[in-house]
């Protein structure tokens, strides 16, 4: 069976020849292909080469589009910094003018002036979309391509900074509403273009829907209704990614969200419990958090994977995947072999 067939079987609730297994190796492709990150995160062909090297070396069942959320922030007016061994990050937050153009004042309606085609033609989105087209072409019929997008409730934090977005959400509701509406337009435009380019689904790390970040009251009153509205219009299946925190305790908050094909869990989560909360429908993905693979030896990794396999043995809708962020650039390839080998065994 191919990765595409294994993931398809999981989506339909059927067991395949073995578990679908993948790792977030978006960054790692640059190391395998020996490409400088300043080029890798700008040139779709360079990204394609990196992911081709990932496929050849590790044969994952899902291949990932660039995990570089800051590129979306750049298209909203933020300045980026590029690094030798990490994805680009926001160096200079955007101004309100830069993000909203002429509709910078609270309550202003940006809808009429937002030009989706122009947004998608910005360097960041254009690179993401062309990378997806190339990956979809290379992996057609063999493995699905997953886009990784910023959740719309997190986009203002990425664009303006965590504290600026917290300040706005807590103390300036009209402006928060304006920014969320602007984020919605960008998210839907980008998600639709990703689907057209060949992404089978879009994974979104979600931070600002977590009570641990903004408190349960605000999550329930403002964020859940907002993302429900946005996700209902999403043009492709979405994977709700845990961000950096366990989801288990709060999963019930999200189980009715529309458009969600699966939940990517933290390694600290209990998969049996998650399934009992969610019911039989959505996929569960996860197993070991990517950034921690580097610091754990192969034996430890094998034993962690064995524990997750045991917990999910009866669950046809489980896909082994690394959680949290990308695997670090310096991760020993032997660790990745151990991880994926154990997941496939």
């Amino acid at each position, binding site marked *: 069976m191919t990765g595409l067939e294994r993931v398809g079987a999981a989506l339909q609730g059927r067991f395949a020849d073995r578990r679908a297994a993948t790792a977030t190796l978006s960054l790692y492709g640059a190391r395998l292909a020996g490409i400088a990150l300043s080029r890798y995160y700008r040139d779709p062909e360079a990204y394609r080469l990196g992911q081709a090297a990932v496929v050849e070396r590790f044969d994952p069942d899902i291949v990932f589009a660039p995990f570089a959320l800051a590129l979306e922030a750049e298209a909203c007016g933020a300045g980026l910094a590029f*690094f030798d061994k990490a994805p680009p990050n926001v160096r200079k937050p955007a101004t309100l003018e830069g993000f909203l153009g002429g509709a910078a004042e609270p309550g202003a309606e940006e809808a009429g002036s937002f030009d989706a085609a122009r947004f998608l033609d910005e360097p960041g989105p254009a690179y993401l979309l062309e990378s997806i087209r190339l990956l979809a072409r290379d992996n057609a019929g063999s493995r699905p391509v997953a886009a990784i997008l910023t959740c719309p409730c997190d986009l203002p934090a990425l664009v303006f900074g965590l*504290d600026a977005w*917290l300040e706005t959400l*807590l*103390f300036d509701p009209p402006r928060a509403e304006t920014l969320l509406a602007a984020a919605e337009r960008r998210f839907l435009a980008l998600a639709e273009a990703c689907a057209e380019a060949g992404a089978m689904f879009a994974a979104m790390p979600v931070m600002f829907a977590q009570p641990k970040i*903004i408190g349960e009251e*605000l999550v329930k009153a403002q964020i859940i209704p907002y993302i429900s509205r946005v996700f209902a219009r999403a043009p492709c299946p979405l994977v709700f990614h845990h961000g950096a925190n366990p989801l288990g305790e709060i999963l019930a908050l999200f189980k009715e969200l529309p458009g969600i094909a699966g939940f990517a869990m933290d390694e600290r989560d209990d998969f049996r419990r998650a399934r009992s909360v969610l019911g039989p429908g959505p996929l569960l993905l996860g197993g070991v958090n990517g*950034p921690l693979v*580097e610091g754990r030896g192969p034996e430890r990794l094998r034993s962690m994977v064995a524990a997750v396999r045991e917990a999910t043995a009866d669950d046809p809708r489980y896909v082994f995947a690394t959680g949290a962020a990308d695997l670090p650039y310096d991760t020993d390839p032997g660790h990745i072999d151990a991880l994926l080998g154990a997941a496939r065994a």
Partner: protein
Amino acid sequence: MNEPDADISERLYAAILAARREEADALLFEFLDREGTEATLRGVLEPVLARIGERWGRDRISLAVAYVAGKVAEDLIERILSRADGTPGLAQGRAAVLGNAEDDYHGLGRRMVAAFLRVAGWRVVDLGCDVLPEAFVDAALAEGASVVGVSAMMLTNAKNIAAVRREIDRRGLGSRIKLAVGGAVFVMRPELVAEVGGDGSAATAMEAPALFERLAREAGA
């Protein structure tokens, strides 16, 4: 704590938990005008922050509440600094140097630490984001700081803190300048504190003053 202090503390605590910053500010400013700087900082705000910090450490409150607490603390410090009668002791305490590690641009945690250190009487020299190792040590020497605090959110950037350790050691200042490290990645990977050469870390911004106090003592300050 006397009765009025206890009452205002409860009201302040409730206002912060509900993210009612203006109400919290009004309570503190009124108390400041009536009772003075020392009573407000040490008698009211510090105990409330300690209570919130304790709950934050147990994951019982959100980052947003901690953020509001930091803002309320900042607002009070600004108010004190703007008073015509001056604030002996507030801005003349021991110095601490703060900054984000080279290539790190996530400043929220650092700014919260700065606010809580100021409330605890530290004079904070905040170098901002993306600070070179030499700049941390230069600033510590120029300001007479015994503790340098370096923040990083991601693993890759946290590893750049090791260069600050090397710079401190290269200049033979290891016993005089202590290195505090912090950020989300250190909570996820506590062993990283030793890996990058940190002398200590705090799980939350509100625990930073106790950490800095301990490190300053170890530095003989």
